[in-house]
């Protein structure tokens, strides 16, 4: 059957249109199929590769689904206690100001247990980049309510839906930190379509470039899906995200050049 291309033929250099960045290891991702984390990892590592900054970047992994980010990101990394990544990053950047320093954190890590570390690193205007993955749920521990869980959204610790009267409203921490003078660039993006991937990559690149210029803290939120935690198929979860998450967490720039976007 000569018209069928074999695996070996596909792998010929002339057929190669895309390759995985060398800054991602060959370790199989621990994320659920359909999850946005893998794409977000790839974007951050591609940006660091394009900057030629493997030797000059220190990443801080959080606690949560991306606790093992250091298994996949082929750079020097530190794994922080839950919520404390911005504190580690603060010290790393202060002690080695010539390095790129970033944290990679989920919503529970950044907006619940680590709220103080997040806000104060932002307020001090640390020259670091925070990559914030917001999927509105605790994925790693099995789908509990997160600070960013939407009103009436179900999770294992709010099985009848988030009752804002007793459980509080979702915390729009990105809008909150955007108010702080130390924060220079804040944007909210997604990674579920090719167009969004391109925009997110541009945003991450911009954040790292601004870090190089010592402009202050740069913050990229990525609204993402958690098909396992939301108990949906990947396709359903992306649709649900567009219909429910995006109206509450609208995509786009929130602060540019130190100025809030109207």
């Amino acid at each position, binding site marked *: 059957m000569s018209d069928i291309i074999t695996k070996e033929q596909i792998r010929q250099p002339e057929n190669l249109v895309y390759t995985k960045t060398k800054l991602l290891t060959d370790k199989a991702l621990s994320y659920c199929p359909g999850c946005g984390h893998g794409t977000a990892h790839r974007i951050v590592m591609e940006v660091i590769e394009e900057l030629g900054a493997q*030797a*000059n970047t220190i990443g801080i992994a959080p606690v949560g689904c991306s606790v093992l980010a250091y298994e996949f990101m082929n750079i*020097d*990394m*530190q794994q922080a206690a839950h919520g404390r990544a911005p504190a*580690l990053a603060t010290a790393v950047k202060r*002690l080695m100001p010539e390095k790129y320093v970033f944290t990679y954190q989920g919503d529970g890590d950044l907006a619940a247990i680590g709220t103080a*570390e997040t806000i104060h690193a932002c307020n001090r205007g640390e020259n670091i980049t925070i990559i914030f993955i917001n999927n509105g749920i605790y994925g790693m521990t099995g789908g509990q309510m997160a600070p960013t869980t939407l009103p009436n959204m179900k999770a294992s610790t709010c099985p009848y839906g988030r009752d804002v009267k007793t459980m509080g409203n979702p915390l729009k921490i990105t809008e909150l930190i955007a108010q702080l003078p130390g924060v220079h660039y804040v944007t909210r993006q997604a990674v579920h379509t090719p167009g969004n991937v391109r925009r997110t990559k541009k945003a991450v690149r911009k954040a790292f470039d601004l870090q190089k210029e010592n402009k202050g803290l740069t913050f990229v939120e990525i609204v993402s899906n958690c098909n396992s935690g939301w108990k949906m198929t990947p396709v359903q979860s992306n649709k649900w995200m567009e219909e429910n998450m995006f109206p509450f967490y609208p995509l786009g720039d929130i602060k540019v050049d130190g100025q809030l976007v109207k």
Partner: protein
Amino acid sequence: MKELRLMKGNEAVAEAAIRAGCDGYFGYPITPQSEVMEYLMAERPHETSGMIVLQAESEVAAINMVYGGASCGKKVMTSSSSPGISLKQEGISYIAGAELPCLIVNVVRGGPGLGTIQPSQSDYFQSTKGGGHGDYRLLVLAPASVQEMADFADLGFELAFKYRNPVLILSDGVIGQMMEKVELKPHKPRFTDEEIRTNTPWATYGKTPDRERNIITSLDLDSHKQEDHVTHLAEKYKAMEENEVRYEEFQCEDAEYLIVAYGSSARISQKAVNIARAKGIKVGLLRPITLFPFPKKPLLNLSKQVKGILSVEMSLGQMVEDVKLAVECKVKVEHFGRYGGIIPTPDEVVAALEQKIIGG
């Protein structure tokens, strides 16, 4: 020429840290140790040695800044007092688990809870038995003078890097606040980038092509590997017990009775020994300088010579348990202490010796 100064204990440890080539201090105010950060901020070491000083938003953040800095192979430290040290326990456990060198200073005040701002020694268990979660130990140095507050900064960093383990200076409100003459050591330069690459090849200073990436973590989801890791930690603690025991004996040669005391209790007990000897009581003092590793062997040796041992601590009796274990209960061991911020007088110590050990 000797460089002598009259300083508070808190100031001495701060000045000595600059001179030890410390790269970064991260702290949060709390009485009775706030002078450590106040002194460093006033000195502006960033303009001389390049050391950075940062006031964090909490003790939790401060110890995690230490975690981040230590991960880079830098000489970093924090200081606090009891309630703040409790908050730091999470970070200390991570630092011990990830095997990072750092210096922590606890200027102890009375507890539990918010307790009192007056001196105490009631954090002995927390300091020597782990403190946070998991199987780990800190190497604990107990200064009994302002001079030792200064000396233990450099020694603490040296031991921290030797063992890749956090070192705790367990001081108290007396030693932190009192002023004494201090001889300061000359300035040591901070580590160069080259020294960090050579001496701490595990550090995260940026992955270069000549090596695999460096990862600082305390996580291992494979329990067999985690057990191996904890076994490795245990071997390290054993090596500390073999190599790092430090203590001082005072009038022990002919002693029939023994007082064991550390920190400011040792200073008070030294006076008590003199008073008791003037009364004809042959008593000596053993002062543990390292609380972990604890001076078990010298205590066991002295237990064969003395009729009874009094453990003097500003607590309900914490170190006394280690004294009993060290002497294998072969001789009478009693505890005497004041607590809640009250400092015992030498006369009270002598009276306790007479009642609990000699008369008891």
